[in-house]
């Protein structure tokens, strides 16, 4: 266990070193999110009325944060896949190091990276008019929930990166899966505007519960459909989602890692 942590930290260090050395990655990740902010705030925003009124931009930003965290799974998957193809994973697997260190290092580094991007996004959100209408404890609780979810998404990304045959496939699969997940939610539009049969999907979607939870914590508009558990306890449902995802994808990822190219 000790070894897993110290080896994991070394791999984390290695993954974080990459960020300043390829600044384009972080810059474009941020630009992509900022572009979504601008598109929805200025282009679609006017056409999307909120059921109970309220500022669309305040409504939008928590959704953008959640979307950014979800899409980060693609970065994780691509990074993992790249390490396989560069032969680096073979080197790690031939070393007398902890079997989980590579997965820990990838996950921790990606969560730290996401935290950084989140800070930049919050500042740009502030600029377009997003506000936290509660206090510092709620701010921290919301960020904590986002980062907790980032851990779950990284676990999915690690598994995916180990499961697909190439970086290109990792990219394709990520976006094919992640786009509908973020759009079939309350991120951009109030779920009431969806067809009725889709509403439960959007309601239980972890991206929705994560977004609703942060909106609630920060006092941003949160017109939520229904009276079920996800509507009443979005934070709790999000945490349950995180536990379920980790319980499935962490062991699956470790198994993949051990059995690579077997």
């Amino acid at each position, binding site marked *: 266990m000790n070894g897993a942590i110290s*080896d994991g930290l*070394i791999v984390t260090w*290695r993954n974080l*070193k990459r960020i300043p050395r390829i600044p384009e990655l972080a810059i474009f990740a941020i630009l992509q999110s900022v572009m979504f902010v601008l598109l929805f705030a200025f282009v679609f925003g006017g056409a999307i009325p909120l059921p109970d009124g309220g500022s669309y931009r305040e409504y939008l930003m928590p959704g953008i944060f959640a979307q950014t965290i979800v899409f980060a799974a693609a970065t994780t998957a691509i990074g993992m896949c790249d390490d396989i193809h*560069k*032969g680096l994973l073979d*080197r790690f697997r*031939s070393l*007398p*190091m902890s079997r989980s260190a590579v997965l820990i290092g990838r996950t921790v580094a990606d969560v730290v990276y996401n935290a950084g991007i989140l800070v930049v996004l919050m500042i740009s959100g502030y600029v377009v008019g997003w506000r936290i209408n509660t206090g510092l404890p709620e701010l921290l609780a919301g960020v904590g929930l986002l980062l907790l979810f980032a851990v779950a998404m990284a676990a999915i990304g690690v598994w995916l990166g180990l499961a697909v045959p190439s970086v290109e496939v990792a990219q394709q699969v990520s976006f094919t899966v992640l786009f509908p997940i973020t759009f079939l939610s309350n991120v951009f539009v109030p779920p009431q505007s969806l067809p009725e049969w889709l509403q439960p999907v959007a309601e239980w979607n972890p991206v929705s519960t994560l977004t609703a939870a942060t909106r609630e914590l920060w006092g941003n508009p949160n017109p939520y459909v229904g009276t079920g558990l996800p509507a009443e306890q979005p934070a709790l449902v999000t945490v349950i989602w995180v536990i379920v995802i980790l319980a499935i994808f962490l062991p699956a990822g470790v198994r993949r890692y051990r059995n690579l190219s077997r």
Partner: protein
Amino acid sequence: MAAITAEGLVKIYRTRKTEVRALDGVDLQVDEGTVMGLLGPNGAGKTTAVRILATLLRPDAGHATVGGFDVVREAHQVRSMIGLSGQYAAVDENLTARENLWMFGRLYQLPSAESSRRAAELLVQFDLVEAADRTVKTYSGGMRRRLDLASALIGRPRLLFLDEPTTGLDPRSRLGMWDVIRRLVRDGVTLLLTTQYLEEADELADIIAVVDHGRIIARGTADQLKSQVGGERIEVVVHDPSEIQRAAEILARDGSGQWTLDEHTRKLTVPATGGAAKLIEVVRDLGEAGVEIDDIALRRPTLDDVFLSLTGHTSETETPEAAA
């Protein structure tokens, strides 16, 4: 003592339609402090064998030990004794050489200070001092390969696996790599080396195992293998086809075996003993008989000849199911 043993290693790669036996019952024994060369074409199973011995791959049958430890059940102990350098330079492009070495040292469980010290040593040894603090992205292929080998040595392993260490290198880098490898062997490292280059196996290995279609089809020292295809030969290219018969009669008399003729190139070949003196004799006899020749040579068998006579194909041709 045997540093590496393998008995009946089998590895099968299955895809939806086909089944490739990458290893089909491989037995190996490498004594401590010696160099074993696995020689074979692409897809022969060399890399698969190395990956099993380096604990990256599980055999489907058979078992193997490295340094006395079982590669499947005691993989962790095996990993603490080995260094692996593959045909793809497995180093982090976004780190510098120094950072790469430090990281691999830490993951080899060296303390941080020891890891830095060892990294500095290896940078000198592999002539990477000047580039040490540049990211690996900026390195040439030869530099990356040297760093990859240095990375494998960070923990002073007693056993080293080198999978095609010079594939893709230019001739000068290859000679440099050979020098480095020879130095390592002098220091007492046990080495298992794979190569498609017959010259390389000849140059570096004490014992050569020729691998084809997942099996070892011959083994021995380079000299033993060469003697399997016979000793020296004299080759004569006759200028005028009408004089071939006369030349053949002379070769039959001077040589020590049956002559053969390649009609297309007008080349006569005959086994010969006596080396250069015999060559001079043949030249003189041909001259006295007035046979005009285009070319004459005394040829020692190369490992290429060995390969051809053992497998029926040269080392350049890929085996049909070149999968792994």
